[in-house]
């Protein structure tokens, strides 16, 4: 299973953090520090895989954002690259040519999309269209609720 997924900028600013295993705030901060340091220090033509403690770290840079995840021993690193790519594709479809600013200003939506794609550190849906449809449907639900919000309760 994936233990965590982090998105951070080239300056090391965190844009998204998803933890699939319970950890203390202190442990989380340590991992974030270590990941940003390690990944940002990588030279351009090295491979996308690293070792850290007992985990395999897979990272990929998309424009100004680094997508970084921690995997367990049995997980397939090449597939993890595909998982990261899939998530970027989903964001791209939703925001229309996604850029870092989209994720900064709409971080809660980035989480909602992630929660339709991954769950408990595993992939829950392998079809892009299926995920896009459910996000759309949830957003519609929210819109309707917004209307209700401006009306009195009864």
């Amino acid at each position, binding site marked *: 299973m994936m233990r965590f997924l982090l998105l951070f900028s080239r300056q090391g600013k965190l844009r998204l953090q998803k933890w699939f295993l*319970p950890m203390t705030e202190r442990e989380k901060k340590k991992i974030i520090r270590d990941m940003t340091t390690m990944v940002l220090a990588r030279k351009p033509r090295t491979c996308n895989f690293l070792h850290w403690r007992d985990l395999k770290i897979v990272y990929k840079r998309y424009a100004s954002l680094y997508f970084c995840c921690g995997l367990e021993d049995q997980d397939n690193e090449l597939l993890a690259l*595909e*998982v990261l790519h899939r998530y970027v594709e989903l964001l791209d479809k939703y925001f229309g040519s996604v850029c870092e600013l989209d994720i900064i200003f709409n971080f809660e939506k980035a989480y909602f999309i992630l929660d339709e794609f991954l769950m408990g550190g595993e992939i829950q849906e392998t079809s892009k269209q299926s995920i896009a449809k459910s996000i759309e449907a949830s957003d519609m639900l929210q819109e309707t609720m917004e209307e209700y919000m401006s009306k009195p309760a009864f």
Partner: protein
Amino acid sequence: MSPSVCLQEMIRVIRGARTQGEERGVIQRECAAIRAQFRQADNGGRSHNLAKLLYVHMLGYPAHFGQMECVRLIASSKYSEKRIGYLGAMMLLDEKQDASLLITNSIKNDLSHSSQHVQSLALCTLACMGSAEMCRDLAPEIERLLKASNSYIKKKAALCAVHIVRKIPELGEMFTPSAHSLLSEKNHGVLHGAVILITELCERNPDNLKQFRKSVPELVQIMKNLVTSGYSPEHNVAGISDPFLQVRILRLLRILGRNNDAASDAMNDLLAQVATNTDSSKTAGSAVLYETVLTIMDIRSESGLRVLAVNILGRFLLNNDRNIRYISMTSLQKIVQTDHTAVQRHRGTIVDCLKDQDASVKRYAPSQRWHIDTILHVLVTAGGDVRDETVPNLIQLITAASELHCYTVHKLYRALISDIVQQSLVQVACWCIGEYGDLLLKGECEEITPMQVTEDDVLDALETVLQSHMSTPTSRGFALTAIMKLSTRITNNVDRIRSVVSIYGSCIDVELQQRAVEYNALFKKYDHMRAAVLERMPVIDRNSSGQTNGDPSVEPMKEFNQPKPVQGVLIQEPANQVCDLLDLLGDSNPPLLVTNDHTSTAPNSTNSTSSNVQDNLLDLLGGLEPTPAPSVTVFEKGGLSLKLQCDQQTETSTTVTFTASNSTQSDITGFNLQAAVPKSVQLQMKAPSGDLIPAQGCGTVTQTVLLSYTNKANLKMRVRLSYSSQGTACQDMVQIDSFPSPAWS
């Protein structure tokens, strides 16, 4: 006003802060406002406020006061509030917080909500942060949902069940029947979840393993459909139909086929089909092939299939994609660890690949330890087939990884005591034990299970190599030198070493005999020098990637194997700079150190060295009186002239002073003088007076060189001058065949 605008406004303000202090101020103000709002009952902006708090939390600021708000929002009837409430719960509440228990009831209710999206929120949150208690409480609900008619819910319930099984393995039996029936689903999301659930159940309980082996034919069929199906737009990734599902199925098959002939047979054909038909030009296909290879090597597959797998790895090693090359190296390492015999049979293929790829492995080896481990494995399995350079290459790598010395010597010691057949491994191990024996004896080492190693154990191991008929003369030489080095690294058994060394003084093998005699001398007459001579090696400097045997990096190895006094090592650095000048002198021998005059018989050379040093010292002190000796102009070009003057003549030594002057209109800068002499002459350069020669003869640069020799007739010198004059860099060479001297008349 929708929540996003409020949130975005705050984000804009925070980002506009120019300093950390300003940002902190903004955030403190916002948090105070949010806190106040939380305290108000029934306000419409609750979800905006929590969203703002979550943003602040991501920046690293404390947000624990939002926990209760999450609980409240989850219990709300409005979807937008539930959505952000559950997100907040996943970010701020984990099983360690007491507040997490408070949402159990909300989750339970939402699991039966009429809207599948609300159910989805509850399922997602449970799978993300559900504690063992919550899981136990809600497991029956999840089991019910697994049988629900809606695939959207089923796939999420399956992953929720996975989380529950991970938290409380005993609850697994609750999900076993449903897991089995889920395999007949068509929906890929549900199938994927089902495969993961079955994998988890099988890993936790061997009974489940037996039961689910019966599903192998079903799994094989699903895989076949995926591999042979035509283009499916919904699941296609780079020509592969649902690689995510394929990889998970392969992983499950691996677990089911392990140690079981029947199951392995049932999947043989499928694996062959996947291995041969999968297009690996993109990452998706390579991911599937990679998983296939791991599965083939782990189950009871027939040898043809194993050859296929190793060939795939071999192909991967030559792939342009760096990631794929990395994967193949790590797979090979895993395979060598677990399946020694299979690898032995394909040794040739693997070693061939490794031989070609050694340089690129270095370039992308993720860590020095990984690199060392990998080469060690190659030596253990195929040590007889590796190139000669592997031994010095590995030694150079080990010396460079100084923080790994302890780990490396422990690993090598263990390899040595189990098997001394592979000579390259034996040589590297002996060298390391000799160098880092003290680290081995300390016992403690991270990353390796502790093992008490006594001095006697280590000496036993080395003596075994020395005495074994399987050891080549080179290996015995390594062992003897290692034993000698330990005499300065151990405390109790020095006498044992002394006796070994003296026994081999009469060995038939001339090389061993010579070494033993010299080591004996180090114990007796030169005991005061023994510690210095046997000191730790400096890191060997590598200037090429070492393709041929005539490689400078190999030479230090030859040097260190022969007992040369410490001075040979210390003077190596400056001598290397003069090496190319020596070449130019036309010596037919390969570049030799200036101090090579010291022959390998230690006693004589150390004597002459010390006397030379004393002579040189005397010369310096004595040479302060300026005796007017004739000076000769040896070089003149473009205004720069070099004069030579000899002083302090003895039968065997001369002090030469060079004087450089400049008659041009501008200064000469960066003036540097290098000198080289034949083998039979000793040269010692003193520091020059400067590197700037003022224009128009206003000043000079002088440099003194001390020469000592056995035969005056051989005294020649070649001098190289480099300098900058009027903006251009220049280099000139002059050969001096005769030296003026008052003593020679």
